[in-house]
């Protein structure tokens, strides 16, 4: 992504606006992966806490979801406990290895 910032405004807000634009224009398709905090910070040349704040703001506005967290949250909402998820993942990995 091409990053240019107006020096007279908060950078995190400009990053949110830029990513929103990319979602609206289809440049970021539904389900597309956003970069992790560090990658985003390096790509945009900004402070990692600023990149974190931009991603948190996108999540707060429900424009993005945390990857690892969303699986756990979704499964917990279906009534699975942490131990059950762990057992499920272990089984899944074993089956994949046997294939």
């Amino acid at each position: 992504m091409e990053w240019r910032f107006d020096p007279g405004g908060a950078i995190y807000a400009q990053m949110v606006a830029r990513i929103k634009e990319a979602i609206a224009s289809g440049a970021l398709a539904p389900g597309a992966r956003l970069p992790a905090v560090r990658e985003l910070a390096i790509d945009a040349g900004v402070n990692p806490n600023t990149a974190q704040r931009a991603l948190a703001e996108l999540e707060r506005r429900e424009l993005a979801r945390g990857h690892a967290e969303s699986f756990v949250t979704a499964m917990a909402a279906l009534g699975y406990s942490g131990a059950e998820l762990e057992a499920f993942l272990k089984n899944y990995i074993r089956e994949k290895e046997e294939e």
Partner: protein
Amino acid sequence: MAVLTCRGLTKKFGSTVALDGVDITVEPGRIVGLLGPNGSGKTTLIKLTNGLLQPGAGEILIDGKKPGVETKRIVSYLPERSCLPDWMTAGELMGFYKDFYADFDRDAAAGMLSRLSIEEKQKIKHMSKGTREKVQLIMVMARRAGLYLLDEPIGGVDPAARDYILNTIISSYNPSASVIISTHLIADVEKVLDDVIFISCGKIMLAAPAEDIREQRGKSVDEVFREVFKC
């Protein structure tokens, strides 16, 4: 706990007051810009933090301790001027840093050198000035330190080298460590800063998060700096 705390910190050189009652707190996980014109006290503050100078009055604490042997374990310092032993090769230099600092990550340093196509057998005295500056920054950032003190890391380097330096600082970011960057080239660094400290004639003029300054004043940190320090 704050990584760095200064209370009423004062330092005089003869009758010249270099630092005058400085109060500062730096929390973990912050990248802080120590911004001021030449001769404002930036380097004095950094040298007090790493124990190269002793305070005249007031107090300075790193992780709750006075600067000394214990704090040198966690403070990684990039001086204003190059201090590399230039008879060594890049590989020997890594061994030298590893001997001095238990937190030196040799693999990380070797990775950064190889990305710049610097060979371990290359002698420092055969490197260009720009390469030497990058090598020194790599040695400093390859430590897993709690506080990095970078004194004018982007003074006198070309724009490509400056981007490399800022990228290295961002990619070495660790939420439990803090970085203090002293500079007067504000436009170049302001995007990577969490907090800014304006210092003039040994006094703190302003200390605030960079995003707050931009949001509240509708101006870049660089513009605000020019206003505060208008001659």
